[in-house]
């Protein structure tokens, strides 16, 4: 799997729709922009995960649904959801 910004946004919406059990059309893309993250886990390490400590470019994808905001992060090899129910999740890598 190799992401573009657009495909990462689509995949994030699909993931969030599944988590919230809602239609993708109910999810709004607040922003999707390039960002430098602190490391190669895109600043969202999962439990028991070690990541390379190199500043890494990717996309910050902010979605909104049912009055809440969701922080997705992606680069060409991975998609993560940060701080969902208090933990970070690797959606795809």
């Amino acid at each position, binding site marked *: 799997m190799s992401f573009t910004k657009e495909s990462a946004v689509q995949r994030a919406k699909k993931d969030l729709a599944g988590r919230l059990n809602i239609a993708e059309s109910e999810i709004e893309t607040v922003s999707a922009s390039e960002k430098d993250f602190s490391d*190669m*886990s895109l600043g969202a390490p999962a439990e*028991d*995960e*070690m990541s*390379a*400590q*190199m500043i890494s470019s990717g996309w910050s994808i902010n979605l909104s649904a049912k009055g809440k905001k969701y922080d997705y992060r992606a680069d060409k090899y991975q998609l993560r959801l940060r701080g969902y129910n208090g933990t970070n999740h690797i959606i795809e*890598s």
Partner: protein
Amino acid sequence: MNRNNFWIHLTVAVVIISMAAILGQVRNWRSTLRSGSPNTVKSTPKPIAVKRPAEEKEPEILVKLRPNVSLSEIKKIAAKNNDRVEDEIESVKGLVTIDDLDNLAAEKVAAQYGAMSDVVTYAETNDKIELAPIDILSPSDLLHRESDPSVSVLMPNDPMFKDQWALNNVGQNGGKSESDIRAIKAWLKTQGSSEVVVAVLDSGVDYKHTDLAANMWVRPDNVPVYKDDELGTFDDLHGFNAADNQSDPMDDNGHGTHCAGIIGAEGNNDEGITGINWKVEIMPLKFMGRGGFGTTKDAIEAINYAIDRKRAGVNVKVINASWGSTLSSKALEDTIRAAGEEGILFVAASGNSSTNNDRRPHYPSNYNLPNVISVAALDRTDNLASFSNFGAKTVHVAAPGRDILSTWLNDDYREASGTSMATPYVAGVAALIWASEPKLTMEKVRERVLKSTDKLDSLNGKVESGGRINAEKALEN
């Protein structure tokens, strides 16, 4: 001892000392002849030519006579010109030194004799030979003199070296001169050794990269293949891949290749960049995948491999760990401790969250173990990089870590930033120390790295040593 015996002993001693001196000189000449390449780095400065002023009383010119011309003939010619044949150089037939008594410029006298083509083969000025004062040249002097072959022996010929501010900061791209690790002076003592093995515990290493291939570890024939009771048997020719449970540690991310280049891209090979170590053996230990992250378990498996290889006779001295997280693992800590018990230094990135590790620990850099060095990152003006973690009690030293040029996948090169990049500078300096003093203990090398830093105001209260690593000082014993 009676008086006669005393004189006999004294005479014998003088003869022995004289012979030893002569033999030593012969050895020097042999050594000079062997190291004929202009790019070979030598610890002895090469002579540079300086024009001798006319008023000095030494002979002004050197004249080589034609074979049929006698010494008496040239003396007559010299006398007519109000010159004097000062000496005949016996080891070169027909070579004499001539002193001009009119105090003319040496160039004019040489031209005068050079025009006598019927009696003279050549005539040249007697240039004063001085040793270049290399020990007091500043890095900028050296760079400005890069085209001067008499000084270029101090500098690697790698074409991108000029962009490696961390090794030689001359203020390029807004940097601050000499905000570097003093590599060009350290190299006067050693440029590394292929006897020292540095394990790069990372995303693998592109061991086929043109600038790395010569410095990659290859399992020697006398070291058996790696066997793990649970994982199986691995033909670990190039290292180990714990991420995929196989032997091939080829990098598919780039991060490990970047770290490897900082430690040991082949130096002075007229290609790309140079590592801190021009020569070293890099052992790739892959535990992170193409995304640049991996599990604690795979990191442990890879460290376990390094310990096994050490016990099998491989001279693994350092593990570079340019990764981490805020999660602590006792198992990882114990494995790193076990590496320390085998004399392996573990150099770890302090993290990129701009936070204080004394309050919010980052691992493995925060493990309080005798073989761990935790590393913060500096920018090219000797300031703590904005992203770098710090900690007066838990981060030990700082090293360059922003806009660092190094090797990348597919024979490429790339600039990258992070404590990931600072860490291999420290690992590389440790390897350089071991190249110079192979018998030093891990504890002593660690102490040497920490105590040889250049203290910086910007690091006061930020890292335990308060300083940036200094390779030159680290090599002083």
